[in-house]
């Protein structure tokens, strides 16, 4: 039986810098390889094959081929990264930074603009 067994630890912590941080002012850099959020990095390369949406376990991703739209519902996404792994064109990436918090449900939508027609051969 001993009293004040934690005192050394307490004294040490009081002398050191706190382990917590003042969050919005001081942000943490996530480690390499962290699964933060799925983003459509290169919309121009996307062929809207829809494999990402089919492989998504929570059906968070919707791909509309006709409208050339790629959509993600971040509240459904569980950050497994399957979509990034299966993407044949490497259009999708997993970013390390988390998506910012938001207050209203919304679906993030990316629409591919019609690409300029290739110049006519002379």
């Amino acid at each position, binding site marked *: 039986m001993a009293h004040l067994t934690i005192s050394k630890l307490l004294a040490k912590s009081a002398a050191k810098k706190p382990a917590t941080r003042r969050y919005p002012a001081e942000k943490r850099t996530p480690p390499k390889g962290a699964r933060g959020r799925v983003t459509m990095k290169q919309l121009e390369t996307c062929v809207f094959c829809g494999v990402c949406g089919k492989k998504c376990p929570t059906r968070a991703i*919707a791909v509309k081929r006709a409208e050339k739209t790629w959509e993600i519902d971040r509240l459904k996404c569980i950050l497994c990264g399957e979509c990034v792994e299966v993407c044949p064109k490497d259009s999708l990436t997993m970013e390390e930074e988390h998506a910012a918090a938001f207050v209203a449900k919304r679906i993030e939508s990316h629409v591919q603009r019609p690409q300029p027609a290739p110049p006519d051969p002379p």
Partner: protein
Amino acid sequence: MMIETQPLEPLDRAALPARVAALAKEGWRLVQICCSCRDAYEVTYSFDREGRFLNLRIGFSKEDPALPSITESYFGAFAYENEMQDLFGLRLDGLKLNFHGNFYRLAKKNPFLDPPAAGSPGASPAASPSAPSAEGAPRAAPDPRPT
């Protein structure tokens, strides 16, 4: 890879209490009770003694959903038995701590009793969203996968 040998001992419903009492005397630990129901009920009682695994399996028809309780030998079985009662609509005779269907607060009575989906077993509801559900019971909404 390790695959455990898992002996499965078919047993008659009436013989269950005596068999379980004998196991309790021998010092087996009740690991779990698992009920499943497709065309008929199938209840598996698993026991363990120093790493050895033993299963007793009881099968009976849907017409007579009753089982003798084993809470006499293993009081801890009340949790599993109440679960079976709530999810599968079984009647447990002699259950020592009976919640009378209120062990789980469920939106629907005996939700595990239905076959999984209409048509072929394991048919994906996403694949056939308009398929009529079995027994007219409202099924959970199909995955809202955009088409």
